[in-house]
């Protein structure tokens, strides 16, 4: 178990910077996920921590001491690769045991034929064999120990790769998209297993993924990366509830957040499609902004319940996706062009077919981002007498 600290990690491939001064503190036993679209630098960062890639500047510290001068295997980190990276000509037992033979046998004890001269080799190999079997039983792959990787399924290879990492009892586990090559069902299952493994081992995990669901479900904290920067670092719930940047808002949450173009009015309140949100943003009047509303925060209005602040805007149901427990409704809203507004509603919701309707959301649930895409904390949300925030309606107009 160990703390990991990154201080100003910078990486350039040629003139183009891939990482721009990454600072990150990871607590002991924490499950930290680096999430972002491909090419954001997250894999490069994890390879720098592993020592497989030298950084251009900055320092990696484990337990407060820099480890930049150490070679990969001296860093007491273990890595699980997306491709599993198993040694193709070795059995499962050979794959899992290899890190231990490297640790416990000297060079000449590993040479062909000459190794037979070593008196203690047999005893060490027996110990390693026992260790390998113990790890294999934890992962339920004892029956596979004699097979080669080519004879294993994707999920089994994944477990072997995990076993090879676990057998070293590392200070830090590094995982580079370990679930991306699995099919959807197995991925969901392995997600649970990995989370349980982390709970059992209580080792520091640094996990790289482009899948926001993996990031949200397994992590203690998530670092969302984009173009070599960390856009936001926080608990999964924080990233979801208070995205610091429009790109974080877009990335986290499924289906993706609805982003509506807005203008800041005279009093600093944003206006979305002609509808004023009753809040102060502090942004200069006339500047452009973006308002984000999660699909679960917006819904068709219940019929016959018009409230104050209605704006007449056409919203026409384009299509409804049935997900079993819920529906995803796609609405056309005038002024947004082809981009639909998505609503997530329970399965028992009566949404009719292709009719016009009103869309309603709480202003307090809206996320406001300035022209650069940074989050703006609104102030002075108009409160109603009941204490509930004002609800805004995007109301359906004449039928198309």
């Amino acid at each position, binding site marked *: 178990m160990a703390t990991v600290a990154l201080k100003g990690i910078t990486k350039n491939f040629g003139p183009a910077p891939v990482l721009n001064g990454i600072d990150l503190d990871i607590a002991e036993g924490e499950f930290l996920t680096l999430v972002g679209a491909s090419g954001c630098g997250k894999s490069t960062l994890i*390879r720098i921590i592993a020592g*497989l890639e030298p950084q251009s500047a900055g320092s990696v510290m484990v337990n407060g001491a820099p480890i930049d001068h150490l070679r990969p295997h001296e860093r007491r980190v273990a890595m699980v*690769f997306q491709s*599993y990276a198993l040694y193709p*000509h070795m059995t499962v037992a050979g794959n899992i045991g290899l890190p231990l033979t490297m640790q416990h046998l000297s060079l000449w004890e590993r040479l062909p034929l000459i190794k037979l001269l070593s008196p203690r080799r047999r005893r060490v190999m027996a110990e390693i064999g026992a260790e390998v079997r113990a790890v294999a039983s934890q992962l339920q792959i004892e029956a596979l120990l004699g097979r080669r990787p080519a004879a294993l399924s994707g999920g089994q290879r994944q477990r072997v790769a995990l076993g090879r990492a676990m057998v070293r009892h590392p200070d830090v586990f590094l995982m580079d998209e370990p679930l991306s090559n699995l099919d959807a069902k197995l991925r969901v299952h392995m997600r649970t297993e990995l989370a349980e493994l982390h709970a059992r081992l209580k080792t520091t995990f640094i996990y790289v993924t482009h899948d926001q669901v993996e990031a949200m479900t397994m992590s203690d904290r998530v670092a969302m990366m984009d173009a070599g920067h960390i856009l936001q670092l926080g608990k999964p719930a924080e990233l979801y509830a208070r995205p610091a940047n429009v790109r974080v808002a877009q990335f986290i949450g499924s289906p993706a957040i609805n982003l509506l173009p807005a203008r800041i009015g005279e009093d600093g309140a944003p206006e979305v499609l002609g509808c004023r949100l009753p809040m102060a943003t502090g942004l200069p009047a006339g500047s452009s902004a973006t308002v984000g509303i999660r699909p679960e925060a917006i819904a068709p209005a219940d019929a016959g319940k018009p409230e104050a602040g209605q704006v007449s805007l056409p919203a026409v149901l384009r299509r409804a996706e049935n997900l079993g427990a819920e529906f995803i409704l796609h609405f056309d809203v005038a002024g947004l062009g082809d981009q639909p507004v998505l609503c997530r509603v329970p399965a028992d919701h009566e949404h009719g077919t292709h009719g016009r309707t009103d869309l309603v959301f709480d202003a307090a649930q809206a996320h406001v981002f300035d022209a650069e895409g940074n989050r703006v904390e609104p102030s002075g949300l108009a409160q109603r007498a009941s204490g509930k925030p004002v609800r805004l309606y995007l109301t359906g107009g004449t039928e198309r």
Partner: protein
Amino acid sequence: MRAAQAKPAGAGRIVRLAGRLLGGVLVHGFLLAGAAFMLLPFVWMLVTSIKPPDEIFTATLSFWPKQFYGYENYSFALTSAPLLRFALNGVLICACILVVQLLVAIPCGYALAKLRFPGRQTLFVLTLLALAIPVQVPALPLYIALADLGLLNTYFAIMVPFFLSVFAIFLLRQFFKGFPDDIIQAARLDGMSEFEIVWRIVTPSAWPAIAAFAVFSIVAHWNDLYWPLIVISDVKLAPPPLGMMFFADAETGSNYGALTAAATILTAPLVVAFLFARRRFIDGITMTGVK
């Protein structure tokens, strides 16, 4: 109505079938002719080796001998020339050359394919350039150097120019290029040195390429006459082709029956070895993209 439609369709099928048959006959006839053209010298060698001397020099061309003279030819060849010695020389020379070539070329190919260091591209270009230099070009300086060192007439002199095989470096570099980087990085994390990665992780996956190269190398050096002729004058050290030459000069003169018998004996190991390694050979060539 139906019958009227079926008839032309049936006729069309017959025409198509006949066309395909004719195409097959043509292609196979062409290939068979090519194969016969390639095999004829070998067949002629085999036939000559069982003919008596007077039948070899008859004016009329006859394929099969009237009198079977194989035993006499082969026993003469085996008793009057140290053929076994020549064959063993060939085995020793080919094996040593191949082993050293692989010991050098595998790490070189790995470094050119997978390690990042300044000048790698330049070195690779130089490697490619070296492929274009025929063995005759450095022959003279090599001969002078070996003569000055007093190493002429040794096994070492036959082998030394071939220890560095640029072709092997190139072939293996192409093969290693396709080896997954992740596995190499996993091995580094597991504590392997680069040398161990080369020999314990990468080489076991390169067997097809190594087998293909081994065939090229063994064939080339088993059959090499040019260089042994320059550096060897001792009959005891001669590899097969040079031994054949000594045999033809000294003992047999124009005894072509015995000569072809000796040639058959010295070619046979190579043919047998190739037949065994054929699958590997073809795999290796298709996998490395050297066609």
